[in-house]
């Protein structure tokens, strides 16, 4: 009834588009503020940081960056983080896909129990569990399997707490593969293992990549587990090293900025290459979870 003469559609549309972009651009700027200030700080001298704390570094000084890059301990942390990440990701993806496969494609007694057991893990995040986990790691260490102050301890705990989520995600993908394929494979004499290894895994490769990307991010960024497990600074991972570095050099804002910028770069580069996988993994996980 109220169809009065309105502004033409294209005009309304472009006005609304304008405001859409306006808000989004403002949000973008706000998101970038801490990152840009950090990057600016990373190429300043301590003196510049005092006199012009948040200006564009002019001229940029790369001394702090270079000094950190020339420090062996920085590369040691990088190496430790890399070892943990690769081991956790490999372990978590293989072990979870085995369980997910069995839960999705085979029938057995106690299947519901196993499934429910792993769902329980979704309600019990590592941040809540860290102290109990520490006890168990200590116990193992006393029994002769050193899990305190070893990278192995970190890897095992990270895998254990990644299992539930990964199993739920992968089970969904394994279930989606048509039943006929399984029947055909078994008729052709495939064993369970053949079917899993030669047919299922290649089929769900994109999903495996998504899960792997997610685990990599979580493992690489994890501070809590290394913080609790490690004492020996030779074994520190990058996030733990960053926290300790901030504790030690916190007053030298330029130096801290340089360190944090350098330790952020691997994550950012990885994100730009694997954004699709990370996003796919997260949304699948959230829908299942």
């Amino acid at each position, binding site marked *: 009834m109220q169809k009065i003469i309105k502004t033409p559609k294209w005009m309304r549309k472009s006005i609304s*588009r304008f405001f*859409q972009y306006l*808000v*989004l651009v403002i*949000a*973008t700027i706000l*998101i*970038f503020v*801490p*990152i840009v200030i*950090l990057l600016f700080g990373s190429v300043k001298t301590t003196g510049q940081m*005092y006199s012009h*704390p*948040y200006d564009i570094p002019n001229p940029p000084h790369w001394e702090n960056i270079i000094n950190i890059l020339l420090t062996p301990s920085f590369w040691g942390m990088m190496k430790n983080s890399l070892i943990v990440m690769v081991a956790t990701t490999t372990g978590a993806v293989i*072990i979870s896909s085995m*369980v997910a496969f*069995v839960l999705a494609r*085979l*029938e*057995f007694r106690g299947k519901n129990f196993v499934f429910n057991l*792993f769902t*329980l893990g*979704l*309600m*019990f*995040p590592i*941040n*809540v*569990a860290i*102290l*109990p986990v*520490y*006890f168990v790691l200590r*116990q193992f260490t006393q029994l002769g399997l050193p899990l305190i102050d070893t990278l192995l301890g970190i890897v095992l705990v990270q*895998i*254990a707490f990644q*299992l539930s989520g990964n199993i739920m995600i992968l089970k969904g993908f394994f279930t989606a593969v048509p039943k006929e394929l*399984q029947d055909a494979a*078994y008729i*052709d*004499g495939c064993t369970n*293992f053949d079917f899993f290894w030669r047919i299922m895994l290649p089929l769900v490769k994109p999903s495996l990549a998504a899960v792997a990307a997610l685990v990599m991010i979580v493992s*690489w*960024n994890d*501070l*809590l587990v290394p913080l609790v497990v490690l004492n020996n600074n030779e074994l520190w991972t990058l*996030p733990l090293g*960053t*926290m300790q570095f901030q504790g030690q050099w916190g007053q030298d*804002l330029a130096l801290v900025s340089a360190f*944090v910028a350098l*330790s*952020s770069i691997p*994550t*950012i580069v*990885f994100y730009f290459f694997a954004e699709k996988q*990370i*996003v796919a993994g997260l*949304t699948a996980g*959230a829908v299942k979870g």
Partner: protein
Amino acid sequence: MKSLPAVSGKSKAIKVSEAPHRKKDTFFIFLFLLPALILFLLFVIYPIFRSVYYSTFNWNGLGPAVKNVGINNYLKIVSDEVFLKAVKNVLVIIVCSLGIQLPLAMLLAVLVGRDLPGRGIFRTIFFLPYVLSEVNAAIMWMLLYNADPDRGLFNGILLQLHMQPISWLGDMSIVLFAVFLVLTWKYFGFHMLLFLTGLQNIPTDIEEAARMDGANAFQNFFYITLPLLSSPIRTSVYMSVLGSIQQFIIVWVMTGGGPVNASETMATYMYRFGLVRFQFGYGSAVAIIMFLLCVIFSLIYNQLTKKPDYLTGL
């Protein structure tokens, strides 16, 4: 069918119509479940029971736990003002997350929408903070929050505006909100992503039809879009609450729970007693309380929100 017997002896047992269940399957299944079960039982389930046991002791971790105090640790915790403060802070974070962070994420998701040119770029940018490590995020923001106006951006801006500088992380009445701002910056992208994915699943013709019937943009959003997004919203709220209950790293790095416990969360409280002061019994009891809160919340929430999903019919 003719080819069946030719394959090998084992194909006899195969029933084409249902998943094969054979004797040797049992061994295979056992083998495939074993590594996960071992890790899961040892590092996720067993520690819970271990903690329940320790939580009844007054134990500093040296030697065996002998001094059983029954439920005394629990009584002490729930009457400790600092713990109650931590619970209150967590509640504030939950309320702010649900009231500010999620609506903000929704707003941005709707603005990015389905067909905006360049939407991919915005999505990439908005999600970037989520993938940065929590330590790095915390330190970045500490630079901005630096109380010295000559060093911290925020106070620099206040000074430009001829206002008094604020001790962002040192003022008991401000610190929690300063922390919350960082949490929002870090996590809103995750919720936005969920909403965006949900939006993409809504067929455009529903909204188109409503618009034809005279619904304006707001009616369209509140009566059509929002109800259709109930599934991602449900997930978002769940993740947000669980995430708030266990909030640790960002608070620990930025404030350590201070000043004077003003930004204490349950997780920082547990960490301090359990792993800094080595009061293992007491810390265990805190862990068990947090664990129960998580489980109770999960169960109630899942029960309450078991509503049909309009789009998938689930």
